[in-house]
């Protein structure tokens, strides 16, 4: 059985990480390439640097372990662990989103995207722009039109 086999992942900046195969295949991308036999050894992971890859591996390990645990790790504990996991700076958070997307790890993608959504909840448009350094590219007329629609047109 392939469950206790180890694989090596190579980050974009050349660092290797040895992990259990069961952890690595949390990523559908990696799982597919192993099954197709097209993955070399070590498996290259372009676009994801070592710092982010380390975090991703940490996430996958934790989730694989808690699924296996005999006494069914409390859902609440896992939720709390996840909440702690995403307490990182914004740049890291966005990198995690991109990595989860590329590596196709649905639960991590959902978690990180929801975290960003929660971050901007309740903020005014200007606050949202400031938080993420976005430029307001509406013309004054367009902005007025959108505002009017928001207030009067629909819900």
């Amino acid at each position: 059985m392939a469950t206790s086999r180890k694989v090596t992942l190579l980050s974009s900046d050349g660092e290797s990480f040895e992990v259990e195969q069961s952890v690595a295949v949390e990523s559908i991308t990696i799982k597919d390439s192993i099954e197709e036999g097209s993955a070399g050894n070590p498996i290259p992971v372009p676009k994801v640097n070592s710092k982010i890859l380390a975090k991703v591996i940490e996430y996958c390990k934790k989730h694989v372990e808690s699924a296996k645990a005999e006494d069914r790790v409390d859902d609440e504990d896992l939720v709390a662990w996840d909440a702690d996991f995403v307490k990182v700076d914004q740049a890291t958070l966005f990198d995690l989103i991109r990595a989860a997307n590329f590596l196709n790890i649905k639960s991590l993608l959902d978690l990180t995207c929801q975290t960003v959504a929660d971050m901007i909840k309740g903020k005014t448009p200007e606050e949202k722009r400031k938080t993420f350094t976005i430029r307001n590219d509406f013309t004054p007329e367009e902005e007025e039109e959108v505002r009017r629609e928001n207030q009067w047109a629909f819900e």
Partner: protein
Amino acid sequence: MASLESLTEDLLVRIYKGLASDGDRKSWRLVCRDFHRIDALTRSSLRVLRVEFLRSLLANYPRLDTLDLSVCPRIDDGAVAVLLTSRGSPWAFPRAASSSLSPPGRDPLAWTRGLRKLVLSRSTGLGHHGLEQVIRACAYLESVDVSHCCGFGDREAAALSCGARLREVKMDKCLGVTDVGLAKIAVGCGRLEKVSLKWCMEIGDLGVDLLCNKCVDLKFLDLSYLKVTNDSLRSIGSLPKLEVLALVGCSLIDDTGLQFLGGGCPLLRVIDMSRCNGISSCGLISVAKGHEDLVQLNASYSLTECSSILLRCFKDLKNLNAIKIDGARVSDSAFKALSNCTSLVEIGLGKCIGATNLGLMRLVSGCVNLRVLDLTCCHSITDAAIFAISDSCRNLTCLKLESCNMITEKSLYYLGSFCLLLEELDLTDCGGINDTGLEYLSNCLELSCLKLALCPTISDKGLGHIASKCRKICEIDLYRCNGIGDDALAALSSGCKKLRRLNLSYCSDVTDRGMEYLGQLEELWDLEMRSLFNVTGVGLMALAAGCKRLADLDMKYCENVDDSGFWALAYYARNLRQEAKLVHLNKVTVEGFELALRTCWVRIKKVKLLAALRFKLSSDVRETLHSRGCKIRWD
């Protein structure tokens, strides 16, 4: 760089989907053009408030699957015709027909192909011509709601029958529809799964029979208040997939008809036969025996007597979740039989003669999973019963004790100690309740709806206890609670920020100071404040300026409110669109009314005014109100 924009569009869509509130999504679309586009491509449901925006909104939201026009006044055949032409007609509406933000070349009719659900309830301006146009244009439409379009008849039904893919049709209160119209729908919409025809009084056995013959996929059927007979039940019995059947108020049905049902509809799970005076325990026994998987049974106000044999049958219904036998006579042995149904979560025993402490104690000893219990008007129960209920049913979320006047603060102590999941409590007319009781009750932190109408023994102090701890309160009824005054409102305004519905009618100690406190409740949506004669224009202004979401207001008999308050209401209350009851406001002049009505008429749907005003209000105001779809009721 930590820039949100550096994420690809599909990732931004995921983040956008994580925003649950309408406010957040509206704020998102104001951020920048890209975000606006993401909202436009992802938003799937729209409830339009003003018809002037309709065309540009539909052009901008091509991926809509649900469109709700029920609160949009002035939807008529003309509006539909304009909506469905592919070229813009800017002169039809004062605003530009297409927004500068939508890219050129986008097909303004793309929305018709994506739409699955259309809500047109109360769109009384729409006729069969417009209805047919929109049904034909939206070829993939699956669900239509035209309820409360009281003028709708067979021609409109024929228009609906053009929707071959329709699975769900809601036509409650379409008073003109007859068997002929229903037949057309049955023939044209063979895939129907859910049909609601409440109050369509012209429909009878013939139409129902044809419906059951042609629409064999029916899962949900509501024929409440129709003059259908046992013959209809014979036809309904043949439906192989029916799961939910509602026959409220069908007085021509009796036990013979129920026997047809007993032998048919193998998948029946929910049946509502309340207010059917022709049926008895026998009929219900045949239904129960034929359907072991029954989940909900409602026979409120239909049975005079709930026999023990009937209640014993329920033991075999392993999935029985909810049962309502309000109005029936029940005996203690009947309660014992019911206690064997341990799967029960909801029991309705309102106005049940014979409901005693002993019976209830027997009941809850078995039904420990109860969450909802209705004991309205069970006059003979006392604190002892409440003790048994709270102790056994720790998961209780809703308890109705209206008119149970022997209940005292002890009962509230028990509830506050054992039933900490309690969300809804009705203590209307419970004369034995006092402030101490409310203090005990405040331990129920999940409380969201509390009815204390007609309880003269409670005061600001008691309400203060509730307000300080029960932060989830959304609805409070204090009708005729004479002990309530401004201090209670102060407590509510600081503790219960989520308050949406409040009834203060006849709490005459309330003054302008109290109104000011109410102005701090931003979520307040429905307020009844009849006969608060200590409230003047000043108070009303404070209320109107603060409660921006106010939609329903009843201020009958507030005799000291004058023009200034009224104008404030008209100016500030931008959402006052559902209903405004403005009778007997003696100090408001005719001019005051006219000004307010002129400002509000775009929004208000129903206004109730003193009959004497009918002749004083200029005809021009009345006509315009009428043409804008606002109904005036004269008192």
